[in-house]
């Protein structure tokens, strides 16, 4: 590997977790990143920051997923919090750097826009560095700063900026959009997230994994299984103790069940945004059916309290699994029937086709993930590229479309329902007998796990201290990557297309905000 001056490479972590690590000095960082051998399909996952004891308190890990089932980590230890920005070379690092600057006070030299990101100026002020652990402590006492002012406003005759949110009509998560226009079309859109920032990663610190798990599940309650699975898998990798086979296969089944429910909800949102209330209601009712079945067979409508480090907390038995497979088939075929009727409805197609187009190359630059990325031509699916749980036994069919428009995204969500149903039907025959938990007592160290959540690549990075408690947890959620790419998709489209494009992205605010 040709890397910048001073870089050395190494391997760390348990065997089941192949990560190639490049250690480098802060000054060489942009050169190292620029000279990484090209690998089409490499995906920037995020940036992990830790504050450790002096003399080199700053520890940063830049994470990529490689197309060959491994991970690539660029590891930097630095004496002071001034690190060169890599966002000019790796555009997907733009928001992760802004996040780290806000929470740790790291000045990323060369980044075009720092400040006011996670911690809104009107609530916290710039000197707050709440994630620092050694020096600076948990300080959030810094006085609130100025009222928020958009960083830019369109300068054109008749141009104006339309702020929307954070509170919307109806039932919407809180987020703010600043739409710049000179009339009909959106010239530029800004997304202001983190109104809902709860500081989940900070809340986990000092807790044992089984307590921190409760927080992981509630980062995004509608994809609780994916979050619990990523967290539990990271902890198990650290312990070197994978969950028993039956638990792994049941986790796979639960994850696919959750994907079906989540995708039905996303499809309902897309249909609703086009104003077709009859099919939208049909899909909302289908989602409720799945919620009821979740509670009937597993206890909780959103599958809280099931996946845990070491395995699963319960085993529903073969009858329930058969019933779930039958129910999944009933609901999915019902939803597919509605979707197929929609594909003959011109008023529906007109609003999705050639709208919100993200070409494949642009989707790669933005580092988009999940169904949204697959609708822009990439065969990117961590269930296949980096198998976890039981996916090596039941590799899923990956749905790819190339147009990158709203309709392509609709079709990917729709096709993934079929694929998930197929997986569930295979799984019920393949789940072996046996226990569903194994002891899991991890020692000090760090590990990470990436899963394919319903909305895309979700990575948990966990460091445990000598007592097996969370010292630092960093979550790299799929929605953050895709929110970052939303402005591209809406640029130059009309105002009335905005809610539709937004719906086809299937975004969660809670997932990104944490």
């Amino acid at each position: 590997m040709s890397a910048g001056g001073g870089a050395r490479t190494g391997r760390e972590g348990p065997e089941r977790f192949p990560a190639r690590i490049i250690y480098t000095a802060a000054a060489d960082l942009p050169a190292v990143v620029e000279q990484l051998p090209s690998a089409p399909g490499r995906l920037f996952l995020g940036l992990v920051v830790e504050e450790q004891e002096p003399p080199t308190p700053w520890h940063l890990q830049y994470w990529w997923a490689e197309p060959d089932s491994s991970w690539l980590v660029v590891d930097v230890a630095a004496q002071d919090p001034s690190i060169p920005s890599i966002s000019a070379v790796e555009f997907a690092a733009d928001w992760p750097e802004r996040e780290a600057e806000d929470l740790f006070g790291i000045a990323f030299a060369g980044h075009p826009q720092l400040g006011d990101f996670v911690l809104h100026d009107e609530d916290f002020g710039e000197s707050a560095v709440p994630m620092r652990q050694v020096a600076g402590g948990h300080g959030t006492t810094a006085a609130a700063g100025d009222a928020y002012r958009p960083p830019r406003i369109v300068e054109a005759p008749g141009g104006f900026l339309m702020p929307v949110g954070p509170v919307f009509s109806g039932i919407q998560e809180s987020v703010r959009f600043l739409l710049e226009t000179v009339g009909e079309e959106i010239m530029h859109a800004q997304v202001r997230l983190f109104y809902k920032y709860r500081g989940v990663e900070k809340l986990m610190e000092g807790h044992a994994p089984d307590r921190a798990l409760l927080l992981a599940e509630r980062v995004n309650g509608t994809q609780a299984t994916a979050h619990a699975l990523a967290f539990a898998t990271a902890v198990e990798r650290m312990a070197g103790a994978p969950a028993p086979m039956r638990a792994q296969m049941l986790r796979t089944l639960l994850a696919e069940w959750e994907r079906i429910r989540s995708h039905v909800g996303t499809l309902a949102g897309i249909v609703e945004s086009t104003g077709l209330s009859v099919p939208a209601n049909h899909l909302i009712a289908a989602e409720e059916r799945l919620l009821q079945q979740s509670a009937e067979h597993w206890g909780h409508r959103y599958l809280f309290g099931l996946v845990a480090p070491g395995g699963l907390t319960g085993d529903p038995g073969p009858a329930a699994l058969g019933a779930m497979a039958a129910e999944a088939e009933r609901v999915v075929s019902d939803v597919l029937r509605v979707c197929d009727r929609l594909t003959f409805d011109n008023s529906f197609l007109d609003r999705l086709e050639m709208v919100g187009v993200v070409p494949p190359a642009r989707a790669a630059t933005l580092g988009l993930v999940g169904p949204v990325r697959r609708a822009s031509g990439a065969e990117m699916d961590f269930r296949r590229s980096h198998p976890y749980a039981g996916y090596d036994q039941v590799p899923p069919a990956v749905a790819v479309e190339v147009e990158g428009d709203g309709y392509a995204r609709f079709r990917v969500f729709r096709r993934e329902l079929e694929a998930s149903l197929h997986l569930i039907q295979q799984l019920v025959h393949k789940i072996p007998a046996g226990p569903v938990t194994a002891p899991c007592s991890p020692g000090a160290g760090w590990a990470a796990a990436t899963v394919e959540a319903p909305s895309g690549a979700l990575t948990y990075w966990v460091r445990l201290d000598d007592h097996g408690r969370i010292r630092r947890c960093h979550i790299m959620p799929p929605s953050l990557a895709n929110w970052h790419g939303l402005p591209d998709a809406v640029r130059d489209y009309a105002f009335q297309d905005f809610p539709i494009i937004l719906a086809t992205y299937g975004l969660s605010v809670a997932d990104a905000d944490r």
Partner: protein
Amino acid sequence: MPWFWEGMKSPIRTLSRRRPDQPPGVTPGRPVATALPPGATWNPGICPVEALQEDSGAIAVEFDRCVHCMRCQQPEAGVAWAYDYQWARQHTPPLPRAFQHSIHVRIIDAGDCGACLSEVRQLTGPVYSLHRFGIYVTPTPREADVLLAVGPVTAGMKAALREAYQAMPTPKRVVAVGVCALNGGIFADGFAVEGGAARVVPVDVAVGGCPPPPLAILDALQRVIGRGLARSGEVRA
């Protein structure tokens, strides 16, 4: 027009008010006070948020703290579960009688994880069909009689929640939905979390659970208009 016929052909999915036996899965249930067998030892540490306590030979449940981690639902935990959904508690009298047939609700996401909001969305969907009770979701604060808040109040949402309340005409009521909106829930200790809607606006009806199912949220809204009272026989002013 074809969607109109499609709608006419589909079966009625709405749950009936008269059927006492609701389908399984409309509620996850909740832990309830359980007598301990004489001389039995029981470990309160099973609950990660100290919602369970041993009190003179019985397990007492402080449901306002429960985050539905489901750990005490395991049979070996020895805690009884009730599959009810009348979970709302009312702190103030309902709205005047004039509101009985129609109220407008404004929904504020003060930082929820998405699951509480999803349950509210289901409540307005075809299965629960909120508007058949004369309860409507409104986008305008000036029209709203009830403010429904979900999620712990984050630093970023504190001002928006307060402003939403202030913009509403009187009389008005606030319904806090989910353990987060009651006291911050699992996020209560967060540096970016105020903890509970009551820190910012006066709460009239509170419904715990993580998340409370649609029927529990419906129970809370009906209490606001004074319909929940007769059934439960509970009058608290």
